[in-house]
């Protein structure tokens, strides 16, 4: 008997390459559940990724899927959306992919408000290459390239995207699976650029080095440190220390780029200034 979500998976391509206890399967599951619940057309949905552990997810997902080069999923996706605005384009990326090598593309896609849904599988580490620090690795954490502890400051990805003009920004975690599914669903429905910072756990390369010995320890850490957005706004800076807000953090209407372009096309077709 096929499971309800099985039609969204390329079952023949399983098992996946992720380590036992990795959070990426949970996030992937949330995405396909959100796609299912939002009722978008699977035949008209394209899933694009860059390079890294998270970016292997599209290979297991039964859509048109594009596994691109490191950091570049967003500009590839931009070309797809511009070429055919009817398509729902979902970008799956990691924290290294989206915030380091692809950081420029992330902020410009947010600025343009092109209709992509970008989901960052954020596990604070480069997993595929065995645990180097990323721009999301918390200060003081250990990584293979931070053997004495991370000395740099991390990004807050939601704040970054918001600062770049992102008009839909949300965060959730692999612990809050239903909540994660719901914010992704909202992101998919949003007509414009939407960004979801999906915290995921990497027990193999982050947890083991940072006193979170089991996947469960990592999930519990998410549970203990996540604060619903509404409560977050009422907290003092002292109370916020070490914690992070989850939920839809920004959601304001803004005209999507391909729609603006369609207006331009209509104008130039009428013999307007071109």
């Amino acid at each position, binding site marked *: 008997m096929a499971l309800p979500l099985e039609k969204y998976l*390329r079952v023949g*391509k399983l098992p996946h390459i992720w380590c036992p206890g990795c959070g990426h399967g949970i996030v992937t599951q949330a995405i396909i559940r959100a796609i299912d619940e939002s009722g978008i057309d*699977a*035949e*008209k949905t*394209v899933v*694009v990724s860059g390079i890294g552990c998270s970016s292997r997810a*599209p*290979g297991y997902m*039964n*859509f*048109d*899927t*594009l*596994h*691109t*080069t490191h950091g*570049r999923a*967003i*500009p*590839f*996706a*931009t*070309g*797809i*959306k*511009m*070429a*055919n605005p*009817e*398509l729902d384009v979902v970008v799956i990326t990691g924290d290294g992919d989206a915030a380091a090598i692809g950081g*420029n*593309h992330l902020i*410009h896609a947010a600025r343009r408000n092109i209709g992509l849904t970008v989901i960052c599988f954020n596990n604070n580490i480069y997993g595929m290459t065995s645990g180097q620090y990323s721009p999301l690795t918390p200060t003081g954490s250990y990584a293979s390239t931070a053997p004495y502890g991370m000395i740099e400051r991390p990004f807050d990805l939601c704040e970054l995207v918001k600062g770049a003009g992102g008009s839909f920004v949300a965060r959730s975690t692999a612990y809050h699976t239903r909540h994660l599914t719901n914010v992704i669903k909202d992101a998919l429905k949003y007509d414009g650029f939407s960004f979801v910072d999906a915290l995921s756990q990497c027990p193999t390369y982050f947890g083991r080095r940072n006193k979170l010995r089991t996947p469960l320890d990592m999930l519990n850490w998410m549970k203990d440190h996540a604060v619903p957005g509404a409560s977050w706004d009422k907290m003092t800076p002292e109370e916020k220390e070490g914690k992070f807000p989850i939920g839809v953090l920004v959601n304001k209407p803004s005209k999507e780029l391909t729609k603006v*372009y369609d207006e*331009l*096309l209509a104008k*130039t*077709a009428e013999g307007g200034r*071109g």
Partner: protein
Amino acid sequence: MKEGKPRLLLGNEACVEGAIAAGLKFFAGYPITPSTEIAELCASYLPRVGGKFMQMEDEIASMAAICGASLAGRKSMTATSGPGFSLKQENIGFAVEAEIPCVVVDVQRVGPSTGMPTSAAQGDVMQARWGTHGDHEIVALAPSSVLEAYTLTVAAFNIAEELRTPVILLMDEMVGHLREKVVLPSKSELLVKDRAKPDLPPGQYKPYADYGDPAKVAPLAAFGDGYKYHVTGLTHGEDGFPTNNPELGARQIKRINDKITSRKKDLPQAEELFTDDAEVFVFSYGGTARSAKKAVRDARAKGLKAGLIRPVTIWPFIEEPLLKAKAKKPKAVIVPEMNLGQIILPVKRVMGDACPVVGVNKLGGRYIEPDEILDAIKEAIQSGSAS
């Protein structure tokens, strides 16, 4: 656009008109001299034909975006010059590996690095060939006139669509920034090829099918057509999914090389002038070939038996005209280039010990003058007679 009437057109402008005639619907680029007019004109013209222009945040994004747009079924192009061409290389490799049709225009300027942005050079010949990593074949065409900036752009799209591969239009500043009288071919004279679409139902469609015949290339479904297929830069099997099987991997890499080498005869062939009885051959491409042509004509006017071979397809290297020349036991082959000697390397390989292969090389952005080539012809004929 006025058909059939003579016009004064800029090389870069002719490239854009050619692209639109070939069916360009998506251009992504980034400003860089001396290719910027191509982006500017695409921004102006494309919306009028229902196409789209995007100025991306960088060169890398431009190359990525055209790959994406092509996979969504639109003919796509980007244009750049040396520094931007360097930045695009990784995603050019992606287009090679994932077999994505697209056109990349490189209007060459002086390098390395920022070099001399407004001055002509031909220093990207080897970068066009080997700029991206890994074993691959690439198609690169070099226009030497404004008319060819048009016709070869059309050809570049046709080859890209037919062979499912990126095609490089290797222009140089000399041609890109030249205004010249042209009569563009009319629509009815123009051959425009579109990519083949799969006729098999989803499930049976293999986006990277290996038919055992390298000249046969799998059709390409557009995203959204219902095929739900996978595209990756990882070495993959016929279904498009990654493979670690050494034999399958080797076979896939070999296939994307062979599909290009097996079609050499179908690519634009060299122009030959006075080669029938030539004793000295000038092998010259792009803007420099204009000087070479003048030099060869001047030589003939002086009774010197010089001939011109002007390759139009630079990569893959088409050996035929040189082999024909070799059979004539020439006194020399002269290879003028606005670089320190790049295309001369395969020329030397083909000619072997048959005759001297002499470079005429110039740096710093100045064109090679016809007299400099003529002097080399004279010298080759004299020393050839003396020996």
